């Protein structure tokens, strides 16, 4: 606790400098071999080494300065704020919110609707491709997947490590059915969802009696089984070659995005031929799918089945003694979550034009689950923020060419993706153990609506 008097604040500085130097020394000790010395193979295939003192110095400086700032500036500031809060007697439940806070959802929605237009305006039709496709669509796919998984993990509390299986089922359903039956995206989208839901039920049956760790292992295996089937059932899935030339989605069959087609969308509107329009269209499609997911989740939470999911997460035995059929409750959770995974999968297939088992590895499941956990289980807003940070952050790394000036020409920031991912998770979990949004909106009210702060419950339950 830093009291605001002259004497202690200079004492604080001394302490901060001391801890900063200490952190620097530890960083030096830790990184001197890993970072300071680099081994590589020369032309004769011999292993030789060279030093990277500059890079090491950066690591040490970051650690030392970071610790100094933490101890000297940030911590006292936070303490003061906490103290002031405690003095004024306002708990974490605050009734008054800023304008931005109250209208956050509306603002976010409008921003999302205007986003493609804004990027076309700012970067030109061709330039917008990167922002709409790499950032917009990519992030929204993960938002949708994470919201879908949120139904299973966040609401029903069934830890699913194989969610990517349903994503794969959706993607391959669309790819195969459109290739063999020639059906359009809009017919196959619901069909892919239904097929994925069916697989959700198929997975659900054997795991009905399992919970927690055991459930996680079985779902993990399920995800791998689906992937291995896709690899080995070469007659149908063409194995690791994948399926290419998947049909593009059309604007409800009215306009098409195939350049040769008579009702080619840009031509119909007198625009120049560009793939950017297709991406902008896809952006709105995935946005609509995301909104559908959010709407369904919010509605379901207020309905008996949604309440049953949440109760199931809390206490299965109590649920049964209240007359809830836990079998159907679990199966519907699996099926609903899987259905949204299937939607996202078929969207993914039409966007990529190519699917292969490569896209559905365990890492994807882990990333989706990480987004759900980071965002705060059960919170749609938190999960969306986490998706933006995690997926957008990874995409941003591709843009960090300037880092090459610092770390040398053969530095590829994308390779550090997982490292940063892990680091970010550790940091978030340290400071916000219940994810970005740890509060849970209650669904039952008599008069007033109050957000219940997560700080009153233990970690992993908020």
């Amino acid at each position: 606790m830093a009291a605001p008097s002259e004497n202690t604040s200079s004492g604080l500085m001394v302490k901060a400098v001391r801890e900063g130097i200490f952190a620097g020394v530890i960083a030096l000790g830790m990184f001197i071999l890993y970072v300071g010395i680099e081994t590589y193979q020369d032309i004769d295939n011999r292993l030789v080494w060279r030093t990277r003192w500059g890079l090491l110095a950066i690591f040490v400086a970051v650690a030392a300065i970071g610790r100094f700032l933490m101890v000297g500036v940030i911590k006292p500031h936070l303490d003061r704020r906490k103290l002031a809060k405690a003095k004024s007697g306002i708990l974490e439940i605050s009734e008054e919110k800023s304008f931005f806070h109250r209208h956050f959802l509306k603002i976010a929605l409008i921003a999302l609707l205007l986003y493609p237009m804004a990027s076309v305006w700012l970067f030109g039709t061709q330039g917008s491709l990167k922002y709409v496709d790499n950032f917009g669509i990519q992030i929204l796919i993960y938002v949708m997947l994470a919201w879908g998984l949120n139904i299973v993990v966040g609401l029903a509390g069934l830890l699913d490590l194989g969610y990517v299986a349903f994503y794969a089922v959706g993607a391959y359903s669309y790819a195969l059915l459109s290739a063999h039956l020639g059906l359009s995206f809009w017919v196959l989208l619901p069909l892919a969802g239904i097929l994925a839901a069916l697989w959700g039920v198929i997975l659900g049956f054997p795991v009905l009696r399992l919970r927690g760790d055991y459930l996680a292992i079985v779902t993990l295996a399920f995800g791998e089984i689906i992937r291995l089937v896709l690899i080995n059932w070469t007659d149908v899935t063409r194995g690791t070659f994948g399926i290419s030339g998947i049909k593009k989605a059309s604007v409800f069959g009215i306009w098409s995005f195939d350049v040769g087609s008579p009702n080619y969308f840009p031509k119909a509107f007198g625009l120049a031929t560009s793939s950017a329009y297709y991406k902008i269209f896809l952006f709105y499609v995935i946005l609509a799918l995301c909104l559908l997911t959010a709407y369904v989740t919010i509605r379901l939470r207020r309905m008996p089945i949604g309440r049953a999911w949440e109760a199931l997460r809390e206490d299965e035995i109590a649920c049964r003694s209240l007359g809830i059929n836990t079998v159907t409750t679990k199966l519907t959770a699996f099926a609903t979550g899987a259905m949204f995974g299937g939607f996202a999968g078929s969207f993914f297939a039409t966007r990529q034009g190519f699917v292969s088992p490569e896209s559905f590895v365990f890492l994807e499941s882990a990333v989706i689950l990480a987004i759900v956990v980071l965002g705060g289980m059960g919170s749609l807003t938190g999960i969306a923020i986490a998706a933006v940070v995690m997926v957008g952050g990874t995409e941003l790394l591709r843009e960090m060419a300037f880092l090459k000036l610092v770390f040398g020409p053969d530095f590829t920031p994308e390779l550090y993706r997982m490292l940063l991912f892990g680091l970010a998770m550790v940091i978030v979990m340290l400071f916000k153990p219940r994810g970005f949004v740890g509060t849970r909106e209650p669904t039952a009210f008599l008069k007033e609506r109050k957000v219940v702060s997560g700080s009153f419950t233990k970690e992993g339950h908020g």
Partner: protein
Amino acid sequence: MAGESLLKVQGVETYYGNIRALAGVDVEVNKGEIVSLIGANGAGKSTLMMTICGSPQARNGQVIFDGEDITRLPTHLIARKRIAQSPEGRRIFPRMTVLENLQMGAGLDNLKYFAEDVEKIFTLFPRLKERQSQRGGTLSGGEQQMLSIGRALMARPKLLLLDEPSLGLAPLIVKGIFEAIKKLNQEEGLTVFLVEQNAFAALKLSDRAYVMVNGKVTMSGPGRELLANPEVRAAYLEGGRH
């Protein structure tokens, strides 16, 4: 006192694997009665309670509720026959608010009588009203017990099963809860089957009682009679000797 029979447990044997926890139990609860079951730790009291609810199911014998054999029904269907339970350890939903917990109890009627019944619960346990938008997990032990009973009552039960409502609570709170049970029984004619370690309070409250030892009912009779019985006094009221 002998009303119409509501719950009839006949020769019930329940096993955990190969271990016999209930060795042929006969218990009867009539409409409008408070019946309690007392016994030492491990006597099989909670097992009997859980067997009535179908988890675990009885291997032999019958559980008959309102003239219907419910021995082989799954737990959630038994609950839909309006047997509500406030289980051992309360088992409220910790992340959900008090109101949501009560809502879960009213699921059988799809919340048809929710507003009306919530008011009733709040008059019975005014503490819950103060805490209505607080999370279940943040309540004190006594409040959680009230919530657990309240949640069970929301189902408009024909039979209320209470498993150790006094567990870990201060005597004053226990008294309050027992008074509430008495009130429900007298004013609404609610039938209650109570499992208790706190033999004194339970026997005083109930019309009839059963004493259970090692998975068998060894004694039964009106509550006051058992209270005066020297054997019962020795084993359960004055402590120590068994």
